[in-house]
């Protein structure tokens, strides 16, 4: 998908998610709270895809940045009285970026299991801090008293979540556009190269480590913004934004949709969160069972996630209709 031979024009299919989102807004106004939540997790998944799908960094600690962003926005609002939503976002982004750069610089020299462990440890530490430092974070009760001033002075957060949804959609759109540019840029090609063959990247003189820290920090920033959005929409921050669980959740969502495809980050959370909203309330034990089984099935049979399956189906159909077309390798 990235690279020097890729076509970069925005295909018409790429407008579908946005059209769908707007349709959702007008057609299903009762579900806007869920909708906003989906948007936030799409943003979170997008940030994870940058490092997982493109640079190949496997992490269980991405919730650290999400949670840090969430808490920063919350603290800045509830404890420091900053009401402006953009300032809150900037604060969260800054904190997450700083943590991303610092931790990335330290841990990205390691590989595989050690790296995984370190990412886990970092989010675990943050969870501990949030838990114990209750004067600032509200501890196990969470941080309430978060207020957000009307956006641009005009749009208040209403109880129907209309503002929240459109606000989230706006932020997501900007982030999507930025991520898309990065992926198609020469830097994006470098990331793909790092994922595909790290030894080769070293041998062509790429400062691999530096590039990885950079994308890690960018990804952290986006995750932090997602976390801040969650705080702004809920006007509350709980401990469940940190730790292994949200990291695992977002990983599952992304895998479900398809890693390294940009839009896997859109498909995954939509399906997961809608299913969760529907099923988990009725049959909580079965929900986890189902997710686990689905995960195993995906890993064994459909490693490309839903979009990967869709690709396979499409290829099979094409081959039925054009049996003699030359097999040109599709660059992904």
């Amino acid at each position: 998908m990235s690279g020097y031979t890729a076509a970069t024009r925005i295909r018409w299919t790429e407008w579908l998610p946005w059209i769908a989102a707007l349709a959702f807004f007008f057609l299903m106004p009762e579900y806007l709270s869920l909708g906003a939540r989906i948007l936030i997790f799409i943003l979170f998944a997008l940030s994870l895809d940058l490092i997982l799908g493109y640079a190949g960094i496997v992490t269980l600690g991405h919730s650290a940045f999400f949670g840090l962003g969430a808490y920063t926005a919350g603290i800045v609002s509830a404890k420091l009285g900053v009401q402006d939503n953009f300032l809150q976002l900037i604060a969260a982004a800054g904190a997450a970026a700083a943590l991303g750069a610092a931790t990335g610089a330290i841990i990205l020299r390691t590989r595989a299991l050690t790296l995984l462990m370190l990412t886990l440890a970092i989010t675990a530490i943050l969870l501990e801090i949030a838990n114990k430092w209750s004067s600032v974070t509200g501890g196990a009760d969470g941080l309430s008293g978060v207020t957000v001033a009307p956006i641009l002075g005009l749009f208040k957060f209403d109880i129907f979540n209309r503002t929240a949804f459109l606000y989230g959609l706006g932020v997501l759109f900007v982030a999507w556009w930025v991520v898309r540019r990065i992926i198609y840029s020469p830097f994006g090609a470098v990331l793909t190269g790092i994922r595909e063959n790290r030894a080769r990247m070293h041998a062509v003189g790429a400062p691999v480590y530096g590039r990885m820290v950079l994308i890690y920090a960018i990804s952290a920033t986006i995750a932090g913004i997602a976390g801040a959005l969650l705080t702004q929409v809920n006007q509350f921050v709980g401990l469940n934004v940190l730790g292994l669980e949200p990291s695992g959740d977002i990983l599952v969502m992304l895998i479900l949709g398809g890693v390294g495809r940009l839009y896997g980050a859109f498909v995954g959370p939509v399906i997961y969160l809608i299913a969760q909203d529907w099923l988990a309330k009725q049959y909580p034990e079965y929900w986890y069972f189902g997710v686990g089984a689905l995960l195993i099935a995906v890993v064994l049979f459909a490693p490309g996630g839903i979009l990967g399956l869709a690709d396979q189906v499409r290829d099979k159909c094409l081959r039925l209709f054009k049996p003699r077309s030359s097999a040109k390798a599709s660059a992904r």
Partner: protein
Amino acid sequence: MPAALQTEKLCKSFGALTVADNIDFRLEPGARHALIGPNGAGKTTFVNMLTGVLAPTSGKILLDGEEITRTNQAARVRRGLGRTFQITTLFRNLPVLDNVALSIAERTGVARRMWRSASSHKDIIEEAGNLLAALGLADEAAAAAQDLPYGKQRLLEIAVTLGLKPRVLLLDEPAAGVPSHDSGLVLRQLEKLSSDIAVLIIEHDMDLVFRFASRITVLVQGQVLVEGTPAEIAADRRVRDVYLGEGHG
């Protein structure tokens, strides 16, 4: 005039095992130099030390007169030291063109850019295309690297390294694994290399070595046995003794 690449008393030991013993080596600018020796002589270890993959136990390495013993791999590449691998190391799932474009982008600094799309960098694409054409790979530019026949993959590896415009080129067994009808292909490309580049090849294929090199160094058990012109090496009794047990490489 300083050597393009030089080592002084380069040593490497793993515990009690010495794989490189006081190697003094000079690669002249524009050279066509070959490094040969029986299996296990330490040739690849030597190249790994030259490129920075492996740190020497002692000794110095100089590139164009400047010491690079402590410089890391990527930095050496940026200073003009290119290398191909014995086992093909490419971006197998990426198109052939991208493989080369990546190295060109690194050299020109374009690789850092995050804003404009990669495919809009026409100059990089054009340079990559020219390089592929020069090596006879233009037709396969859009194919995935792993779909190429093995001989062409080896050529692609050379193309990728040439994209760096290296001043010194280390080729680790460029013809290894290439079916004999294709190894002529590899040799022709090697002969077309610019005389600005100092080339060192490690090879077992003696035909290739004797047709390509103007100087040969023989490495045995981590030590330089002898160095000279192809004629001198061919006539040297010690070399023939070493290879007698091996048979033809």
